[in-house]
């Protein structure tokens, strides 16, 4: 009898254990972030290290952001045109492209692209430093590894994400112009003229809030996964780093999309 009850409840207890583990992990990530964030302000400020990270996360991502932004805008222009033309309202294409980019696609696509480019490398770099005892070496030198490795990356993400998102939005609108005006023949004046009155300051503000939040999420999760590579069950050494990188990318992508929904519902 007892055995039967056990087998009935087994899936639930498993689910419970998983949920507790997941929440525990989220809590650990939050503490990790607070720790790293507080250390941003400890003196002396790590200006040059932060600038290096801005260069790595921000400047080096510009090309890919331009490319992805352009094509996202172009495809939005195409799809938007064929939908709008059915209702005879292809004139508002400019506004449609601009709004969907600024409110939604800009911050999300930028975050996803930076996760792929910089987030994975953050996790891998810190993970390798962990397994080759470089983080222990920092500790023996009385250098706080979280301050040294994580804080500059968080600041750099906070600087880079909004700027890259802005670039993405602008180039996306240009992409929409290319497909809408140059290919499909919408009047150039109408396309551009519809953008300004339809995009409110609130939309732009929301866009930047999202970019900041995504920046924090991506930098924290990717650094966290790398930093605790050695604590992962089931993988040591190079295998551990590969697992850490994978879960950094997956977890930050998923969280970006989930948080995007939550933020949007608050901002609307």
């Amino acid at each position, binding site marked *: 009898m007892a055995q039967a009850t056990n087998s009935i409840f087994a899936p639930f207890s498993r689910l419970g254990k998983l949920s507790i583990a997941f929440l525990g992990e989220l809590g650990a990530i939050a503490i990790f972030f607070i720790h790293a964030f507080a250390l941003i302000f400890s003196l002396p400020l790590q200006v040059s290290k932060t600038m290096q990270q801005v260069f790595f996360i921000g400047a080096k991502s510009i090309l890919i952001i331009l490319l992805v932004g352009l094509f996202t805008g172009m495809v939005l222009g195409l799809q938007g045109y064929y939908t709008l033309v059915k209702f005879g309202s292809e004139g508002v294409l400019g506004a449609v492209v601009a709004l969907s980019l600024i409110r939604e696609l800009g911050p999300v696509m930028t975050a996803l692209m930076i996760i792929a480019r910089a987030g994975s490398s953050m996790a891998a770099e810190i993970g*390798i430093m962990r397994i080759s*005892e*470089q983080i*222990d*070496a920092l500790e023996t030198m009385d250098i706080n590894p979280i301050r040294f490795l994580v804080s500059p990356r968080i600041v750099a993400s906070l600087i880079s994400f909004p700027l890259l998102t802005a670039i993405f939005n602008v180039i996306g609108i240009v992409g929409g112009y290319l497909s809408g005006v140059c290919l499909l023949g919408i009047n150039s004046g109408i396309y551009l003229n519809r953008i300004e009155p339809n995009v409110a300051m609130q939309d732009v503000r929301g866009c930047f809030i999202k970019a900041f939040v995504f920046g924090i999420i991506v930098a924290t999760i990717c650094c966290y996964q790398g930093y605790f590579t050695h604590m992962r069950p089931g993988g040591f050494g190079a295998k551990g780093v590969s697992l850490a990188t994978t879960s950094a990318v997956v977890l930050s992508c998923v969280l970006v999309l989930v948080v995007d929904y939550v933020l949007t519902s608050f901002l609307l």
Partner: protein
Amino acid sequence: MTAPLIELKNVTKRFGEKTVLDRVNLTIFEGDITTIIGKSGEGKSVLLKHIIGLLRPDEGEILFNGKQLKGMTRKERRSIKRQVSYMFQNNALFDSLTVFENIALPLREKTRLDEDAIRIKVMAQIDQMELSEVTDKYPSQISGGMQKRVALARALVSEPKIILFDEPTAGLDPLRKNVVLSMIARHQKKIRFTAILVSHDIPDVLFISNRVAIIDDGRIPFQGTPMELEQSENPVVQQFIKGQASLKDELTGLNTRRYIENMLIQEMGRPDRLQESFSIVMFTIENLEQINEHIGHIAAQQIIQFLGTLIKDHFDTADTSARYSQNEILMILPHTGLKKAKQVLDELATDLQKQEIFQAESYPKACFSFSILAGLAEAGPGMDLDSLIGQALSHQKNIVHLECIKHGETA
């Protein structure tokens, strides 16, 4: 006896089911080189990590200057941490930083020195470690021996009072091994830091140690001076030393001191010895320090190696010579009286003097003096080991001598 600097009392550490350290007691005195030897996987690194605070004991306590590490405030603990450097087994160099940046990192992060002062300090270390050619290279671009030296330079640059070395010679060839050890010994003499070494490179490491501790099965069955180690009756220690006796000195290919001493004692105790006379020659390389200083540690070790190999190849048909200490080689000439031995030695001396390595012209850029001394003694009745060796030492004369030539003035 002075008060110990670091004391481990009944320290126990378990990883899951496995007890790695089992009530370990260890005492470390200031200014000493203490070597912890033991088979691999016996928890040597774990022990070191406890001392620096990377790991905390499950039970027991660690005392610094008589004060418990556990009961210290954060500030006190940090001030101790600042006095300690750690050289990791696999160096743990920052692979995205150049050699220079690696060595400069502790200074840049932890001191308020300006960039010029840091550069001067780092370059001094780089020169001492003979790394000037690779200053701007990354750790993965340089050889294993060089990486070790970078790690050593990084450990030394912050002028710590205590340095922990985790297998500083692992994975190096005999020559580089001795180079690293002689560098550690030399810096220790100069700066007087307290060194704790973990190693299994006996006997080389014993030449430079003041104290030795053996770790076996998570416990420390012995700690004391290298001399006490050799005389210890403890079965675990005996096992260690027996293992050692069969080893040859890696650098020179000669036997070890323990081996030859046993052989001499046996030889001198033989009843029919009176009919069979034998002699010994003690070679001493003088001013090895100057060679370290002016030409480099590698050259100094090469000279020892060269002398050892030459003796072995030319005279050592019966395998009877040994590396007696870091700069001494002892050779036994069996069935040889003093007169014949002198002849043999003269031949060797002429041979040595011809060698390129002992010509002043081979070192155009350096100014130093250097000599090899050799002393003969014949075993007589009623002599013991100490007096025989003492006699050989007291009769030592120059067989190779190299005086500083000031090239600038003669040219």
